[in-house]
């Protein structure tokens, strides 16, 4: 009877007040530490690059371009790793067909958003539907998601390894379809569209960042009665102009690259927020349950197939978006860009960071981009400039000729010159080393609790150690 009176109160005070403050503290603390960690990492990477650039006496233009490139790759691989983390890190779905979903995304965007055939000055072989780029991006994502659904429906009932086979096969099917002459060009309902075959397609839609700024400009235009105010006045008038003071001549491409990369970094932030939210929820908890033991999760009343399909489709749509943002700003794409190599880049990024952790995914993407992807080439640049661009031996034989005599310089120069080719070897070695020494990645096996609220004890812990609780089962503590 005392129980009846006091338990609601106990719940009130114990369950809400402190829990809420604890929640805020816990969330902030975690977020702070993660945000600080990420920020420190990024600053460190930039510092290394800037120092390297200063050492070789890069002109400012070159340095800014390098940093813009770096930012672009960090964002792209960060986003890719985040999307893959939803599949592999959370749900345990072994997707090695990432590049197929990227290709689907960017090609469908191209079809939807390329200008209509024959219109304007475009010399493109095939046209598109001429719809705004934003429509194209959404449709591209939906298409990648649908392709994921098609792959998932039969394959998710199978065990993990079969999904892997299906996905890598699918990504190659996508590539060969894009290569095919049969669908390279055709007329449908008055539109001349197609996938362009082996020549690829020219992406002659608006530059994504330009389209973005112009779209943002709409409310300003409405008020000020201007046209593309933000783009014309602010972006071109202020930003590019200001850059012109230090970067000349022709500052616009440099600003464009940097601005686009910064934009992608923001989109990556969006990915992070979305996936973190997805993970820290009952939905994410079920996904983790599936990863750990699907049968058990199913036996607890969860429709695991449905959860797997949802997770897979969302991840695929995000991969489609990564493809669009990665390749959509490049002017043109060809099918053979989309080889499985790209898939494995993203896998390496995720493994470096630690599957299962969103923060780890971003860290992995950044480290991969900075030190394995762009790093070796930058290093080559720096060393070559420091050495005054020496002539490297033309062949392996020539490189080895002097080694016997104790002169290793030609060999080292040759190695340096071949760094682009050696890049994949380095990645492989890093992967092997990681697998042996840190298979869980830099941040793996961290307790990122899948719950929308912090899981601390709802009531004061002082009352818990009496035996009465154990005797009467699950009634609220008094």
């Amino acid at each position, binding site marked *: 009877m005392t129980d009846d009176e006091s338990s609601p109160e106990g719940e009130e005070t114990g369950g809400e007040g402190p829990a809420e403050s604890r929640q805020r503290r816990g969330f902030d603390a975690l977020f702070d530490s993660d945000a600080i960690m990420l920020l420190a990492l990024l600053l460190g990477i930039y510092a290394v690059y800037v120092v390297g650039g200063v050492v070789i006496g890069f002109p400012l233009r070159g340095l800014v371009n390098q940093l813009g490139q770096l930012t672009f790759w960090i964002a792209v691989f960060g986003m890719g790793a985040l999307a893959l983390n939803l599949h592999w890190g959370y749900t345990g779905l072994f997707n090695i067909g990432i590049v197929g979903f990227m290709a689907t995304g960017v090609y469908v965007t191209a079809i939807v958003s390329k200008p209509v055939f024959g219109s304007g000055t475009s010399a493109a072989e095939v046209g598109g539907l001429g719809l705004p780029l934003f429509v194209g991006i959404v449709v591209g994502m939906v298409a990648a998601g649908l392709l994921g659904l098609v792959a998932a429906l039969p394959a998710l009932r199978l065990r993990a390894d079969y999904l892997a086979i299906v996905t890598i096969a699918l990504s190659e099917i996508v590539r060969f379809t894009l290569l095919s002459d049969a669908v390279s060009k055709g007329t449908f309902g008055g539109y001349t569209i197609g996938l362009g075959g082996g020549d690829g397609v020219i992406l002659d839609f608006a530059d994504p960042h330009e389209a973005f700024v112009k779209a943002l400009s709409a409310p300003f235009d409405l008020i000020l009665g201007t046209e593309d105010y933000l783009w014309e006045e602010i972006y071109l008038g202020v930003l590019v102009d200001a850059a012109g003071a230090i970067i000349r001549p022709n500052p616009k491409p440099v600003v464009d690259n940097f601005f686009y990369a910064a934009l992608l970094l923001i989109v990556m932030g969006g990915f992070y927020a979305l996936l973190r939210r997805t993970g820290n929820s*009952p939905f994410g908890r*079920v996904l983790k*349950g599936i*990863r750990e033991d699907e049968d058990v999760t*199913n*036996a607890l009343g969860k429709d695991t197939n449905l959860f797997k399909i949802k997770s897979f489709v969302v991840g695929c749509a995000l991969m489609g978006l990564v493809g669009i943002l990665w390749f959509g700003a490049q002017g043109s794409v060809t099918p053979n860009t989309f080889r499985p190599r790209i898939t494995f880049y993203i896998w390496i990024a995720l493994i470096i960071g630690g599957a299962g952790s969103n923060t780890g995914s971003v860290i992995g993407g950044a480290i991969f981009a900075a030190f394995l992807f762009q790093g070796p080439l930058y290093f080559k640049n720096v060393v070559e400039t420091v050495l005054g661009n020496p002539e490297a031996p033309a062949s392996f034989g020539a490189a080895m000729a002097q080694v016997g005599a104790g002169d290793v310089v030609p060999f080292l120069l040759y190695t340096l010159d071949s760094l682009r080719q050696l890049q994949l070897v380095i990645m492989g070695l890093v992967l092997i080393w990681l697998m042996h020494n840190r298979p869980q990645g830099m941040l793996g096996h961290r307790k990122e609790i*899948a719950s929308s609220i912090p899981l601390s004890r709802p009531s004061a812990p002082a009352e818990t150690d009496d035996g009465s609780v*154990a005797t*009467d089962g699950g009634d*609220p503590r008094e």
Partner: protein
Amino acid sequence: MSEPESSAADATDETERPSASAGDDVETDAAPLQVRDLRKEFGAITAVDDASFDIERGSLTGLIGPNGAGKSTTFNCITGVHQPTAGSVRFNGEEITGLAPHQVADRGLVRTFQIARELGQMTVLENMMVAPKGQVGESLWRSVLPFARRAVDRQEEEILERAWETLEFFEIDHLADEYASNLSGGQRKLLELARALLTDPEMLLLDEPFAGVNPTLEDRLLDHVHDLREQGYTFLIVEHDMDLIMQNCERVIVMHQGRILTDGTPEEVKNDEDVIEAYLGGEV
């Protein structure tokens, strides 16, 4: 707060616990689980051979038999892991034959596994919180969209509270933040039972819950099972250990070579010639 909360506490307990409300309609159906002529063939092998039995509400029934008698296969057919070749399974009057495991669980018939299967790289508390039914936050949109998230959070607080209480009941609340893979074998069994309870089951099917559990923990588990049965849960337990079943169950079903050998009180079963034959004399 150690003094008499006996009857009052139990009363509130009954009303608060959704599963117990199901115990209110005892009169509608005495046998929530009815298995009729259940048959499962794997190729030429008949693992379950026309097994029929009823499980009464609120009872603690043991299902025993030598290795390969078809106990686990029977379990798997009831819970949807296997599709039975023939026969029917009814739960609370509803045909559940051939439903998927999650559909069976959703109807209040929840199982545990022979080898404790914890969700290893999740904390004990996370393990618990996966279980409850009808979580709004299991919808992706509700979990992600800001305005819908508040309802999710509110429900999460309730679930969290229940999870803690259940962990305390099983006296493993000190392990709440541990990864489940760090638990000992016996603690995993406790966790598995605790987790199953959070799904608000009416009936629990425990597949060898005492295998590999030390005697002290075995007693604790048994105490919990008896407590829960008094609260209105129905149990069907598969077990190897004849003595344990005989001492604790009010009814025992004996299987042998896929068939139901006998079905009765421990006393009856103990004196049954066929059972003695199967266990002591017969081909095992």
